[in-house]
């Protein structure tokens, strides 16, 4: 199925992700005197990159395979992050600055007397997991249902996704909204009783993140690799034609859109646990646009490319902002332009030496253009 498409390496990437996070996790547990000890700083960075890789994977699913250029996917990432953040804040309990066992610090500071109803149950980890999945999926479902059935597409849809994340950012900035205003949620102590600052918890979390990212890669590969995947590509390339075959493209897009939002949300939750803070800045439209650049750099429609792009661009950002902080945005812009001009298929296109897949350039004599690819 889809023999010629270039997402076959996703399972290889999944294995590499698990191995690398395993090595980092073990390395972080070595004594500080060891020359190959992985510092807590690097562990935090690695955790952040993996979370971003989830976001990139989510973007690639809808942009690469359904042709929906989302410029608001960080909204789902941040919502997942806030759902996990709520649980982590409740875990602090009486250890907060105000020592209030029932209310998070920011609510005490706002002189709130009781928890708002939407915080009920947030002290239970399973509830946090449920919120992390249901809220972003529900929002994505509602948004997608409205947008796709009205046949909003292309640049108009991109603009609405920007508006969505911007509106959420403004809402979350409000103190009265009940999520800590512009400070967001932070000062977390532990998760399920494990100290978040312990090297063992960090090592475990990084390895779990690696497993989850690998799982998401395999799940995404399954979704795009089967008959649904063929339909998805058909909708991307000739949407109206699929209608005359009896398909409802809006349902196809909605399904992959919600799936993608859930992957982004899980990424957000992993981010909060490892980075230790979530604030409304995560909803900033620029974050969603950056995620699109990661995917473009890695290679759109390849799954592995999204992961590689997210990790490499963020690694570049970390290094670049340390040397020349004010130049980073120019660097990012230049990177995007260079990719568009010289590497239309991103790094994956370069690595695999794939011929151009544009149909007009596939010569009829070649029976199976990419058949030799492993």
């Amino acid at each position, binding site marked *: 199925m889809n023999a010629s498409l270039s997402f076959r390496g996703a399972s290889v990437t999944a294995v590499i992700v698990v191995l690398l996070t395993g090595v980092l996790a073990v390395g972080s547990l070595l004594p500080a005197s060891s020359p190959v000890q992985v510092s807590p700083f690097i562990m935090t960075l690695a955790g952040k990159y993996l979370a971003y890789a989830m976001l990139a994977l989510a973007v690639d699913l809808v942009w690469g395979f359904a042709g929906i250029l989302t410029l608001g996917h960080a909204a789902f990432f941040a919502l997942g992050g806030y759902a996990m953040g709520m649980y982590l804040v409740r875990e602090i309990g009486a250890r907060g600055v105000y020592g209030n066992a029932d209310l998070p610090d920011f609510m005490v500071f706002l002189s709130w007397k009781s928890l708002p109803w939407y915080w009920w149950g947030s002290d239970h980890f399973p509830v946090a997991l449920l919120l992390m999945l249901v809220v972003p999926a529900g929002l994505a479902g509602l948004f997608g249902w409205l947008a796709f059935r009205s046949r909003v597409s292309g640049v108009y849809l991109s603009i609405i996704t920007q508006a969505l994340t911007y509106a959420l950012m403004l809402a979350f900035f409000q103190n009265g909204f009940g999520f800590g205003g512009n400070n967001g949620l932070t000062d977390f102590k532990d998760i399920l009783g494990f100290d978040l600052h312990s090297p063992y918890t960090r090592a475990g979390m990084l390895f779990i993140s690696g497993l989850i990212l690998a799982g998401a890669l395999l799940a995404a590969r399954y979704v795009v690799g089967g008959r649904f995947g063929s339909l998805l590509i058909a909708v991307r390339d000739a949407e109206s034609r699929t209608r005359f075959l*009896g398909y409802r493209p809006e349902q196809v897009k909605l399904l992959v859109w919600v799936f993608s939002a859930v992957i982004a949300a899980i990424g957000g939750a992993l981010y909060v646990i490892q980075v230790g803070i979530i604030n409304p800045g995560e909803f900033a439209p620029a974050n969603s646009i950056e995620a699109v650049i990661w995917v473009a750099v890695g290679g759109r429609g390849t799954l592995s490319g999204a992961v590689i792009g997210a990790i490499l661009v963020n690694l570049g950002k970390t290094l670049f902002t340390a040397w020349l902080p004010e130049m980073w945005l120019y660097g990012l812009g230049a990177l995007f332009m260079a990719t568009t001009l010289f590497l239309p298929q991103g790094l994956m296109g370069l690595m695999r030496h794939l011929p151009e897949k544009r149909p007009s350039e596939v010569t009829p004599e070649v029976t199976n253009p990419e058949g030799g690819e492993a």
Partner: protein
Amino acid sequence: MSAGTLLELSHVSVTFDGFRAINDLSLSLAPGEMRAIIGPNGAGKTTMMDIITGKTRPDTGVVKFREHDLTKLDEPAIARMGIGRKFQKPTVFEELTVRDNLLLSLKGLRSPFALLFAKETAEEKARIDGLLHTIRLGREAPRQAGGLSHGQKQWLEIGMLLGQEPDLLLVDEPVAGMTDAETMETADLLREINQTRSVVVVEHDMEFVRALDVKVTVLHEGSVLAEGELDQVSNDPRVIEVYLGR
């Protein structure tokens, strides 16, 4: 509507920005019939197809397929009801293989959720093999459809139509850009298809229409100008004036 009618358009009109593309058009098709529709550019042939397949809603008039009112339905619903459409410009899914194009078209699963877990069955494989044989693309099955020649794409699209198992096929200019030999082969194929299904063919190519040897409807300015055998129609002075005489 009379009992022996598969498709019936009565007094259908549609206006785009003040231009009356279809003007009080009435037309009916018997079950099992093949009909050729001819007419000069702008006569409303493609708009008529759009109305039947749910792409365009008429301003007034009734469009019935058996007992169903097509003006109340959208494209997927009409397609599932058994009306297949072949476009003027072949539209196949270029990045998918020939085989996957056919698999997508096969009558049956249409729910995206079910497709998420569906595997190709032995029966589906056999149907695809049969279609590949009919459209003579057996050797091209594993190729990306985008790499096919123009004529091959036309045939693949016809194969996809057959895969849908529609009761009525709407075929828009199937031989545009084909060689003479391909044109005659396509006429044979359509006649073969017509043995089990009703067909409406829109075409400019008179040799092709003659080869089909079926009743002809001439459209002009959005309504029916003449109807009958090709020889009879082509001797009609009004037809000669607007179309053939040019």
